[in-house]
């Protein structure tokens, strides 16, 4: 009798654990998807300089470095058309490929070599985005951050401005702004 009761309790506890774990996983997937949509939307509110090479002019290349749930989601955006240009998704394995990127998402897994990635593309019109802590202060442009329930973003205006990118005032209105130059 006691064994049977113990079995029932174990089944109930295991089921509850499985349901909770599954809900947490769903929530994580949902957050990752939302962040991917944010990256797509950042591109919508960004203007790149006109004087770009032809392949760069004809497509909008979304690149990613490292590995996380967002880098896995980004290829889903490939083929969509943004401001008349088809989106191309590229997973960067070699830093020399960074030149063709319009948007570069940097996963947290690349934390140790962040300067190696950012240094060669400094002053180039590549919109860098990451959810790495202090990313906007390390030379990145847009840092995704969680504010209680809401997903927010910090924009380093100085880095963005010096790269030749123009961000929409609407986007800036929603962001937390860091402007080293103004300081």
């Amino acid at each position, binding site marked *: 009798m006691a064994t049977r009761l113990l079995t029932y309790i174990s089944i109930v506890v295991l089921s509850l654990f499985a349901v909770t774990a599954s809900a947490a996983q769903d929530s994580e997937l949902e957050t990752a998807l*939302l962040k991917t*949509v*944010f990256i797509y*939307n950042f591109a*919508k*509110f960004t203007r790149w300089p006109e004087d770009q090479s032809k392949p760069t002019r004809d497509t909008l290349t979304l690149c990613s470095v490292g590995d996380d749930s967002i880098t896995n989601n980004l290829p889903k955006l490939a083929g969509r058309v*943004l*401001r008349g240009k088809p989106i191309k998704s590229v997973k960067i394995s070699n830093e020399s490929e960074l030149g063709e990127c319009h948007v570069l998402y940097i996963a947290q897994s690349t934390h140790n070599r962040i300067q190696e990635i950012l240094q060669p593309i400094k002053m180039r019109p590549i919109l860098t985005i990451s959810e790495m802590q202090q990313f906007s202060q390390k030379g990145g442009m847009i840092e995704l951050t969680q504010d209680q329930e*809401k*997903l927010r*973003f910090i924009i380093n205006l100085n880095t963005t401005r010096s790269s030749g990118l123009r961000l*929409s005032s*609407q*986007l800036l*209105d*929603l962001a937390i702004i860091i402007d080293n130059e103004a300081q």
Partner: protein
Amino acid sequence: MNLLRNASIKQKIEAIILATAASVLLLSLFLFMILEITSTHDETVSRLQTLARVLGANSSAAITFRDDQAAEEILSTLATQSDVVSAKILNLNRTPFAKYRSAATAPDEQHTDASNGSFVLFGFIEVEEPIVLDDELIGYFVIVGDMSNAR
């Protein structure tokens, strides 16, 4: 008619001219009123449509980045328009994302399926404009104006 039975032909002609003139005057007045009301209605609709289009365009970032507070701040700028009683931003699935209601009395919640259209109900006019970003429909801007000034 009995009044004119004993009247002279001159008086009869004068009466006919007077009646015709009065009818024409009344008809003109009536037509003028209709024209004035239509014109005021069209002007109000056009102004509300422009407001909805401009504020809708300004709300596109707030919608895409799901910032309802920013959207409500944009809607609150309508406080300067005395004839706007309420406004709301709807998501693609037509659920309200942000709302505004003027301090003055606003009509009860009204619903319309008339996209790009307007309708008048008890002196209030509702205008709806789609919010488009980069050729992609992202939501709707609904604005309700008070037509009482036109009445």
